[in-house]
């Protein structure tokens, strides 16, 4: 500890901190632009100059380490003169037209110049102009003349996003922030550059000139698009969501936001929104009053329950439905007498269901990821499935943690990977058990018989520090998910570490707490579709995009007598449903998400539901009333939540422990195996309809990726159209080469309209020349 004095205030601070950090901790503000607590020190703007006793000239507070007895003056004559001078220089080339700048009203430069600058400019010569750049559909670099070259955006890319897509080219007066040969910025975290840019150089393309910051109302909310539980500020005007920003939360999202969370809102007011209840009569869709639609739905359900039997009714919900919605949905089903309810629509192996006592979760707080020394990530498209978790692991790796990967694809994680084993899906279990075997040998001094790759991972995991095994979406959707879980448990035990699941969606934990899972008599999501029911209740589900086997799902929907689709959008359900009930997306309803670390977070609606859409929990409550099921009289979503969580100790429920499981080897059927990711902007209904996100590189039409040797075997050229088939369905897509893929696999994305005619996300698949 070191004692210093800033503006006469005595401060005790850690050795190694800088003056600006010490000042901020003591609540003293020092003007700055290039400094950012999460980025490296650049010290190029000079705004933070302060006077330091015995120093001959002002020093930059962001780059000056504290020393014992240091006396700093932030508002002395010398400091003020320096700040004023720097401000004047910064404004020399900066346009002085804040009224027409999109950043006006929330601009650091504007604020600082009011606080520290002069009243008028002494510079009357010509200012330099910097041409605008097109860097993609999300971030606007329209006004690069406003750039003050602080390089925050550059450092963010290189240090946090892990890829240096922006840089400062040329020199001095000609220095310009740009991308390499006019490329686009493709990082899944790019929107953070907008927040970081202290001026109006980088702004949000979709939000540009939509509103002034002071016209917006702000509501706290929670991200609905991944399982992290990111804190959001939803900004609205005239009952429209116009912008989404992060709210700083060091334990969850730090000060960042993924592009998915930031720009998904553009899908909220899509033309596909369902704004009136509809029923199909004589094959024609008709808009009807709520009362009519609800009675139709209730009567239909009653009819089937009384006739074919309640077990002929199945309910499916997506895992980004709220806790309240999931709770009431299962309550409704159980009230009718059916135990068929599930929210794990992309899962294919449910054999762990009666082998695990608790609710599967991350296995540790998110913040603990930063403290890991070694981590084994199994079956995860980490960067795209969990952008901010990947950023956190990236930082841990920078501090020395070792990342080990077992997966079926070898996408660039933009971090140093210590060891990796890339195998076909049917070899995933074997790869993991090799690691367990190697650890066992390592620990108990037996001779190593495992593969070299497994031994290397085992060595990394037995470092004796903080260790974790994390199972990603791919591992959870894998047909041997339970075995992977059991092996992860074994590995974690052998390495004295933790293990857990990186939840797929906002309520991957909440769904369990809400009991939206089948009981012992009920059918899980897969069996409900494999053995078609007579009636389905769908909550937020797009059957061909949200399920593990779209072919099967669509067939089940089409053969059903009654499909009640509760949805915010008018989608493909119009071809198989009988009733469409317009419900509110997360910005238009109150609700609760339980994040992957088990954090229960409730939020309020930011705007009123569009048209006649209603919060799904209310719709379900009325359905309960119409069906005369007791216990459907909650007045608020809070009442539903409290009922759902009554007497539940969430922390105590969270457990990944699994008892002995049967090993079901998947039959090696020969031929090519499918590997499927759900692309980052195809994960849920709102994201799928966000035009700016759909215009990104990440949202490109899926291709059939194969090792180039496999392509050669098939006699297919890169870029040629191939016919990819599974079961009775096939699609024609372009072939692409990825030599990092294992042999014998084809990577074809799921969750996308272009591949929705295919079958299961795992299993055999054929590729032929078209």
């Amino acid at each position, binding site marked *: 500890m070191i004692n210093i004095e800033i503006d006469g205030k005595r401060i005790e601070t850690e050795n190694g901190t800088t003056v600006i950090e010490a000042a901020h901790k003591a609540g003293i503000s020092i003007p700055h632009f290039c400094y950012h607590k999460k980025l490296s020190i650049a010290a190029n703007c000079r705004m933070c100059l302060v006077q330091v006793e015995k120093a001959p000239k002002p020093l930059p507070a962001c780059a000056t380490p504290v020393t014992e007895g240091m006396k700093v003056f932030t508002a002395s004559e010398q400091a003020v003169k320096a700040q004023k001078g720097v401000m004047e220089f910064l404004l020399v080339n900066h346009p002085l037209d804040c009224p027409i700048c999109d950043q006006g009203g929330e601009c650091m430069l504007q604020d600082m110049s009011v606080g520290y600058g002069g009243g008028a400019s002494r510079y009357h010569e010509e200012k330099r102009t910097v041409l605008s750049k097109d860097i993609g559909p999300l971030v606007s670099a329209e006004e690069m003349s406003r750039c003050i070259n602080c390089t925050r955006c550059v450092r963010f890319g*290189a240090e946090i996003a892990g890829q*240096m*897509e922006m840089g400062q080219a*040329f*020199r001095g007066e000609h220095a310009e922030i740009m*991308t390499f*040969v006019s490329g686009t910025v493709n990082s899944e975290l790019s929107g953070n550059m907008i927040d970081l840019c202290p001026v109006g150089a980088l702004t949000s393309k979709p939000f540009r000139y939509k509103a002034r910051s002071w016209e917006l109302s702000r509501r706290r909310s929670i991200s609905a698009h991944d399982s992290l539980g990111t804190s959001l500020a939803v900004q609205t005007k005239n009952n429209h969501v116009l912008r989404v920003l992060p709210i700083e939360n060091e334990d969850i999202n730090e000060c960042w936001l993924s592009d998915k969370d930031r720009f998904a809102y553009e899908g909220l007011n899509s033309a596909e929104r369902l704004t009136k209840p509809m029923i199909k009569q004589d094959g024609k869709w008709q808009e009807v009053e709520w009362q009519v639609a609800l009675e139709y739905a209730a009567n239909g359900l009653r009819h089937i329950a009384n006739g074919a039997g309640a077990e002929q009714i199945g309910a499916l919900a997506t895992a980004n439905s709220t806790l309240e919605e999931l709770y009431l949905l299962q309550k409704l089903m159980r009230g009718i007498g059916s135990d068929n309810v599930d929210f794990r629509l992309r899962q294919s192996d449910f054999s762990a269901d009666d082998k695990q006592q608790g609710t599967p979760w991350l296995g540790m707080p998110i913040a603990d990821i930063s403290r890991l020394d070694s981590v084994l990530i199994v079956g995860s498209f980490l960067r795209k499935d969990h952008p901010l978790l990947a950023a956190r692991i990236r930082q841990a790796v920078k501090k020395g943690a070792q990342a080990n990967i077992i997966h079926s694809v070898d996408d660039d994680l933009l971090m140093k990977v210590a060891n990796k084993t890339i195998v076909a899906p049917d070899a995933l279990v074997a790869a993991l058990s090799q690691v367990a075997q190697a650890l066992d040998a390592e620990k108990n001094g037996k001779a190593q018989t495992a593969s070299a790759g497994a031994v290397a991972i085992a060595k990394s995991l037995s470092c004796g520090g903080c260790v974790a095994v994390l199972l990603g979406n791919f591992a959870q959707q894998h047909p041997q998910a339970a075995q992977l879980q059991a092996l992860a448990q074994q590995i974690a035990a052998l390495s004295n570490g933790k293990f857990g699941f990186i939840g797929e969606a906002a309520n991957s934990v909440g769904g369990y707490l809400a009991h939206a899972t089948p009981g012992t008599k009920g059918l899980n999501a897969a069996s409900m579709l494999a053995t078609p029911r007579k009636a389905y209740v769908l909550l937020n589900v797009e059957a061909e995009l949200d399920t593990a086997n779209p072919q099967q799902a669509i067939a089940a929907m089409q053969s059903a007598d009654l499909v009640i689709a509760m949805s915010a959008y008018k989608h493909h359900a119009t071809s198989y449903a009988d009733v469409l009930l317009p419900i509110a997306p997360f910005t238009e309803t109150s609700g609760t998400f339980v994040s992957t670390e088990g954090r229960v977070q409730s939020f309020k609606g930011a705007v009123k539901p569009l048209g006649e859409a209603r919060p799904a929990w209310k719709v379900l409550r009325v359905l309960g009333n119409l069906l005369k099921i007791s216990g459907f009289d909650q007045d608020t979503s809070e009442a539903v939540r409290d009922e759902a969580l009554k007497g539940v100790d969430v922390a105590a429920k969270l457990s990944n422990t699994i008892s002995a499981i049967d090993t079901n080897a998947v039959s090696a059927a020969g031929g090519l195996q499918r590997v499927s990711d759900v692309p980052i902007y195809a994960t849920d209904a709102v994201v799928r309809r966000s035009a700016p996100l759909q215009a990104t590189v990440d949202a490109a039409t899926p291709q059939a990726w194969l090792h180039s040797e496999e392509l050669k075997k098939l006699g297919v050229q890169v870029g040629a159209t191939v016919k990819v088939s599974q079961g009775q369905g096939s699609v024609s897509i372009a072939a692409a080469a990825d030599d990092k893929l294992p042999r014998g696999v084809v990577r074809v994305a799921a969750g996308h309209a272009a591949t929705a005619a295919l079958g299961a996300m795992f299993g055999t698949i054929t590729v032929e020349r078209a």
Partner: protein
Amino acid sequence: MLSDQIQANIERELKKYPADQRQSAVMAALRFVQDEKGWIAPEDMADIAAYIGMPQMAVFEVATFYHMYKLKPMGEYTLTVCTNLSCQLSGVNETLLHLKNKLGIGLGEITADGKFGLREGECMGACVDAPMFTINNKKLCGRLTGEKIDQILAELSAGGQGGKQ
């Protein structure tokens, strides 16, 4: 693709730096490319980035920062004329005018036959010989007069070795 010669040169350069500091060789690598091709295209920068293992943009930053890297074709013989103070005082404006008239091009341009290019440069640290230009950044020609310039140009046109490597 970087030629075998360039790759060999870069390899030699890399030996001068610690294994985890490969980016230190980027300036030399850019120079090797320029020496061989006369200028550095974005594709060359991408190749260098891939070879050394650094972001493409970081190579671009270096290449655009230093004036002596040529980012577009600048003729077989690039004449870089110093326009800083000592040269100004010693009449570089007339030198420039003479060159422009003689070659029929302005600064930043090349002759139609691709033989000559004209660039503006900063002080070459040899003010004693002002006014001056360099040929392809390698050969310094000072105490320039109209006559001397004509002679140099004639020599270069005739395929003289001028500043060519």
